[in-house]
């Protein structure tokens, strides 16, 4: 019997219900799985230790704590080392970008002007994971995204 490939698993750290809903609908439409979400850093850190998603979408400004706290905890505790970490924020300035990347983020996007790129990235990663699953190519681990 053929094994069904596991969909891309996504976790969202975002305090805005409207943006969460937008991301969730894109995740669903892409055939990926939203494994959880959080509006604050502590809950996110606890969840991420247990869930080990493939993709983590992180806002900087949260209900309590910040996206930096989440990135720092992931880095210090080596949680989800293979997860792709994408920051999507209204605070898109070089200082925040550099700090995010130094804390292990793979990409950094401006929420005001680059959200559609994040939606595209979710779709691309979900498709890539599906293809990888159906090809069953154990050597093909690498994501197809660019580190900003």
């Amino acid at each position, binding site marked *: 019997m053929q094994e069904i490939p596991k969909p891309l698993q996504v976790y969202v750290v975002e305090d805005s219900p409207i943006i969460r809903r937008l991301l969730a609908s*894109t995740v669903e439409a892409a055939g990926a799985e939203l494994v959880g979400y959080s509006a604050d850093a502590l809950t996110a850190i606890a969840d991420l230790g247990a869930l080990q998603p493939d993709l983590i979408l992180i806002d900087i400004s949260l209900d309590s704590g910040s996206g930096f706290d989440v990135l720092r905890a992931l880095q210090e505790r080596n949680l989800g080392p293979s997860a792709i970490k994408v920051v999507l924020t209204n605070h898109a300035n070089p200082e925040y970008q550099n700090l995010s990347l130094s804390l292990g983020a793979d990409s950094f996007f401006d*929420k005001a002007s680059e959200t559609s790129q994040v*939606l595209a990235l979710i779709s691309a990663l979900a498709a890539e994971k599906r293809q990888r699953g159906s090809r069953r190519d154990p050597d093909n681990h690498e994501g197809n995204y660019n580190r900003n």
Partner: protein
Amino acid sequence: MEPDIGRELYRVMDALVALKCDLSCDPHIPGETLVLSAEKSRDACDALETASASIRHLAAVLNGGGVGDASKH
């Protein structure tokens, strides 16, 4: 209570971003949603409502009135 003006403004920005994505028929959104579904329409309305409420809140405070005091305008 005075709102955190920065936070309110970011709330408006988030709502507008979501609205833009919902209405833009982005090529990465699958074809069956190119005609806005009822759900997407409701999401867009919610985004507008959130943005409007935040702007109204800010405008009232910045004009020295109470929340929702739009009678002067």
